């Protein structure tokens, strides 16, 4: 087993760990930090794939990821949190252990789904697809369990991280046009989220999505 494959395995495991840590983290600023770290791990794993396979466009992708996911987005989120005065918020999470157990179950499901596919992924590692899928499912879980708008958005972005990892780890990256398009969408998406935060704040005086549950009972 080559060093690159081992490194990828390690980074993948750490990515999954970050996904779990985000699931259990109550403080918003720490959550943003974890997200930034996850982005950095993602960029590092992309760089390792680029280095080991010698695909030039993956270097670009790694650079883009590092810039966007590890620097720009966390900074934007941090500034948003400060400007919305929710930076010191501690989110009341109920029953973290149960959530984590559900998370474990999701990981098992993801691994089970990914195993047959991993066999035929001829790329340097087999485990990445399962871990990526697990990250995606965990981020979904995080979005479900969170009540604060910013935390939900971070869940959404970390979901995107999982998808990126699937793309680089399992397939050496999508074609460049697609990757650029996705990056653009993510960036615009965060912008729109930002606008949203202010609109929600302006209307409800809070970023708690509890207020956003009035329409539900209308069917």
């Amino acid at each position, binding site marked *: *087993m080559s060093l690159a494959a081992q490194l990828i*395995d390690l980074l*993948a*495991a750490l990515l999954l760990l970050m996904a779990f840590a985000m699931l259990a983290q109550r403080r918003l600023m720490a959550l943003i930090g974890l997200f930034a770290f996850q982005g950095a791990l993602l960029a590092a794993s992309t760089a390792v794939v680029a280095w080991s396979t010698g695909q030039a466009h993956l270097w670009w992708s790694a650079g883009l990821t590092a810039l966007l996911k590890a620097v720009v987005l966390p900074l934007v989120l941090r500034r948003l949190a400060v400007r919305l005065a929710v930076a010191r918020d501690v989110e009341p999470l109920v029953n973290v*252990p149960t959530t*984590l157990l559900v998370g*474990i179950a999701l*990981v098992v499901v993801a691994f089970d789904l990914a195993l047959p596919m991993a066999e035929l992924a001829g790329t340097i590692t087999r485990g990445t697809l399962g871990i990526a899928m697990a990250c995606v499912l965990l981020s979904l879980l995080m979005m479900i369990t969170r009540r604060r708008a910013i935390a939900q958005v971070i869940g959404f972005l970390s979901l995107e991280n999982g998808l990126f990892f699937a793309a680089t780890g399992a397939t050496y990256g999508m074609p460049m046009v697609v990757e650029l398009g996705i990056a653009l969408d993510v960036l615009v998406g965060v912008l729109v989220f930002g606008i949203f935060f202010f609109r929600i704040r302006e209307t409800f005086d809070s970023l708690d999505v509890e207020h956003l549950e009035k329409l539900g009972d209308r069917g």
Partner: protein
Amino acid sequence: MARDASFLLRFAPYCVFGCMVLAASIVPMVATGLPFAPAADVIALVGLLATARVFMALAAMDAGTAFGSMGARREMLVAGLAEPALLMVFFMPSLIVGSTSLTTIVETLAYQPFALHPSLAFAAVAFVMVLLAENARIPVDNPATHLELTMIHEAMLLEYSGRYLALMEWAHALKLMVYAGIGIALFAPWGVSPAGRWDLVPAALAALAAKLFIGGLALAILETVSAKMRIFRAPEFLGMAFLLAVLGMLILLLQGPPR
């Protein structure tokens, strides 16, 4: 010493101390091929630690004071959660190596060519969490406190004095040493001298001293930066440890042994 207590109160310190000495003697910290090597099984090790704990809790309740019973109950709460996590942690190197014998694990991990084991990283983090909980360290317990709201381990020793207390405290110190030894054996086994190589023992001792120094430093830093958490958060903390261990195991199963 309490006059109404049974022989258990006097008997327990010897028992606890004996268990710890035995545990310390099977963990290959300096060299493999120890006299007790055939018995150096990780599951037996967990059993030894559990035996010590049971006697300690029984003795604490034997005195019949409120503090003793409370401490015993809290200790059991922590231990009941820490033990599965500890077992899961042990299973991971066992799976990698294919044996539950500590000697085999250390020999395999120490002398194989360099390899990254992501699952061992998870196990290491989980192990540190278990270590903190089992040895009554911050953030789970505070070994220096005698505050009724927070103490766990100390509450069980309140009835002891004299040589019994000394034995108990010694056993407690040994326990920390055993845990440190396990941690070193599983996650940093470099420098351990192979069986029959007496010439390498001094170097191994030096390496152990260095590792213990680093470990102690890390523990001190960890305890300094973290705050003691409420006792009701302890299950969550240990749940995290268990979860990390399970996660590591899953990753091990998914990624397979190093090819």
